[in-house]
């Protein structure tokens, strides 16, 4: 099959039907990827493009497609004046800032522990990974009762250890986001730990041996061998962690519905509410595009740092 496409060495080509054969092979290739491409085009590409289009319009989506009214950049001009948009950007940033570093640090810690010989390692690994695969609704239901400020175990424990001024958790506009951050860290911990374990196992032992020979202690080994060697893993988790934290939705929708006040309104939730509760699909699309731009900028920054920092550390 390939011989007719690339031939740096001059093999005498047979004359018959080459053009048609190549065409047919190309067609066969396309047919193989067609189902996947079709699904992708209909369910991913088209909605994304349609969202871009809608971000320049006003549309109450129930009344049918002919109700779409193009308003140019008006929606974008509305963004800075939208009280919920400003708050949701702030809350989303805070959430990401709270969740991602902690997830990575704790994930790495667990991975380092798990990487050594410990009892019932498979069982512990399973327990670690369980939160990540549990249904968000189930997670929300359980944490809701844990965080109950009146009778929940967390506040009871805090009271036992002597804290008088108990936080109101999900009912307090100061603590609601903190509660969500805690749940966010808990959910993603196992995934981070698992990826780190894989990364740790790819660090060659010779490096550790030579470090020991040079008299490196535990911390020195970590800082000079482990950490630099797993920096690609770290950056991968950082980027994917930031992207998925920016998109947090189910936790908010199930546990707090954006409240109390606007303390847990995040961008994805604001998009949902603007589109499906206020019936302003056009403006909701605008907010979604804004979210995309923010995440994109962050990813670019991280990518740049990745290129600069990791390449320097990669062993050659």
């Amino acid at each position, binding site marked *: 099959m390939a011989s007719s496409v690339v031939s740096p060495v001059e093999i005498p080509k047979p004359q018959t039907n080459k053009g048609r054969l190549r065409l047919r092979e190309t067609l066969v290739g396309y047919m193989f990827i067609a189902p996947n491409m079709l699904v992708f085009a209909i369910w991913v590409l088209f909605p994304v493009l349609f969202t871009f289009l809608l971000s320049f319009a006003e549309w*109450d989506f*129930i*009344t*049918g497609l002919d109700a779409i009214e193009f308003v140019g950049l*008006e929606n974008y001009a*509305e963004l800075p*004046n*939208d*009280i919920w948009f400003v708050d949701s950007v702030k809350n989303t940033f805070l959430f990401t800032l709270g969740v991602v570093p902690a997830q990575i640090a704790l994930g790495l810690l667990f991975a380092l522990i798990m990487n050594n010989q410990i009892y019932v390692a498979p069982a512990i690994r399973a327990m670690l990974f369980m939160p990540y695969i549990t249904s968000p609704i189930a997670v929300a239901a359980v944490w*809701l009762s844990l*965080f*109950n*400020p*009146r*009778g929940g175990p967390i506040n009871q424990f805090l009271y036992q250890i002597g804290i008088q001024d108990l936080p*109101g*958790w*999900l*009912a*307090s*506009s100061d603590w609601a986001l903190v509660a969500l951050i805690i749940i966010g860290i808990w959910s993603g911990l196992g995934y981070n730990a698992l990826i780190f374990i894989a990364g740790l196992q790819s660090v060659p032992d010779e490096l550790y041996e030579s470090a020991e020979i040079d008299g490196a202690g535990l911390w020195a080994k970590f800082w000079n061998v482990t950490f630099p060697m797993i920096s690609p893993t770290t950056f991968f988790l950082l980027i994917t962690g930031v992207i998925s934290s920016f998109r947090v939705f189910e936790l908010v929708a199930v546990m707090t519905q*954006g*409240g*109390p*006040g*606007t303390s847990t309104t995040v961008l994805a939730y604001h998009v949902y*509410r603007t589109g*499906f*509760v*206020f*019936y302003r699909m056009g*403006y909701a699309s605008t907010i979604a595009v804004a979210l995309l731009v923010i995440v994109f900028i962050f990813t670019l920054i991280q990518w740049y740092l990745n290129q600069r920092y990791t390449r320097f550390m990669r062993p050659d």
Partner: protein
Amino acid sequence: MRTLVRISLLLTLIFTLSLVAVQSQDDEPVTIRLWAASATEPLQNAIDDWNENNPNIQAELVRYSNNNEGNTRLDTALLAEGEIDVYISYGLANFRRRVDAGLAEPLNEYLPDFDVIEEFGTDITIIGDMLYGAPGQGQPYFVYINQNAVEEAGLEVPESWTWEEFTEFAAALTEGAGPFDTKGVILPGWPYTSDLVSYELGADATWFADDIGCVANFDNPLWQEALQTRFELEQVDQVAVTFSDIQAGQLTLQGVFFNEEANMMIGGTWLFASLIDLDEYPHDFVTTFAPVPSFDEDGNDFRPGGLGDWTAVAANSNHPEEAAQFLRWFVTDGYLNLIESGRFGAWKGFTPEEQADAFLSAIGDTAELIDQEAFARVVFDTSKDFSVATMSEGVPQLSQIHSDVAQLVFSGELTSEEAVERLTEQGEAVLAPLCE
């Protein structure tokens, strides 16, 4: 070979066509479908009742859930031809939305003598001179009171009261200020302050100071008074279960009241379904009733509560005439079938006694747990009408900012003056894009 293929195709075509021809000459009774989301049994009783008396128009019930998915399912089915004949929208916003989208059939030609204004007290279903449907349910709100607790405290339930009098009464019914003490009252799990304001001002004036819906009405003193009232009930006098407790513990009115963790609750007739469900909510005290307290001495200007079960004929129905007949029956006499689940009709053709008796006899023994005199007097007090919202654009946003701010007032983070200032400011901001 080819000839054989062609002949067999032709035969198949002829056969199929003849089947179709036979179908269309059928003389079956007309079947119409009703899409509804309330309790199945009473609805089915209504359908059976109609079917018995109307052999040539047979009705069928299709149940949907009144949540986002269910409503989307209904919206989609409405677009299809012949799929739905009569449907009930829950919430005026849903009804309006479907009418605006052209999914409701005008009824003027099928029911020329159907005067909704006279029979239901509202012209909200008449849009641009065309009648699109009628409200089936009238859901009043009132105070449910634990009679035993009242007697133990040596009190008497008044026939009307202001919020001050109510607070005193609730204080006598409150065990203490601790989180596990029985409280005097539990209020609804949403801020409810907008409802309270609407009982005085009417649904439109609650949100808008003008006629076109571009100026919010938050600087009306009633808003501050309503927010202050709930704040005081919860935090100052401590007679009400706090809003944050309700949120954090996901408490329900019925869960708390029938468990005797609060001695009063304010809500609508939907709570009767829990009152008669002694398996889920076992209790042995008698429930008595009083009207919702008002801010001034002359009582609320409107009847607390609202209309619901907005019934319409689908625009894509194949039998609009028959559907219209069914609709008319359903929202008038037919609605009495639903009374056993606590759904009372909005039709003015029902007398209060008729409905009260129908309900009490439908629930059998549990009627002993209801103070029947107060029940008939308070629940069926038709001296005032429900207020109905005619302006809907921008209301969800205003409602959301109100909800956000109200929560901060109830927890004490904002005073009611600051709250009203913030509401006015934010109200302008959210209405601006809709009004330019």
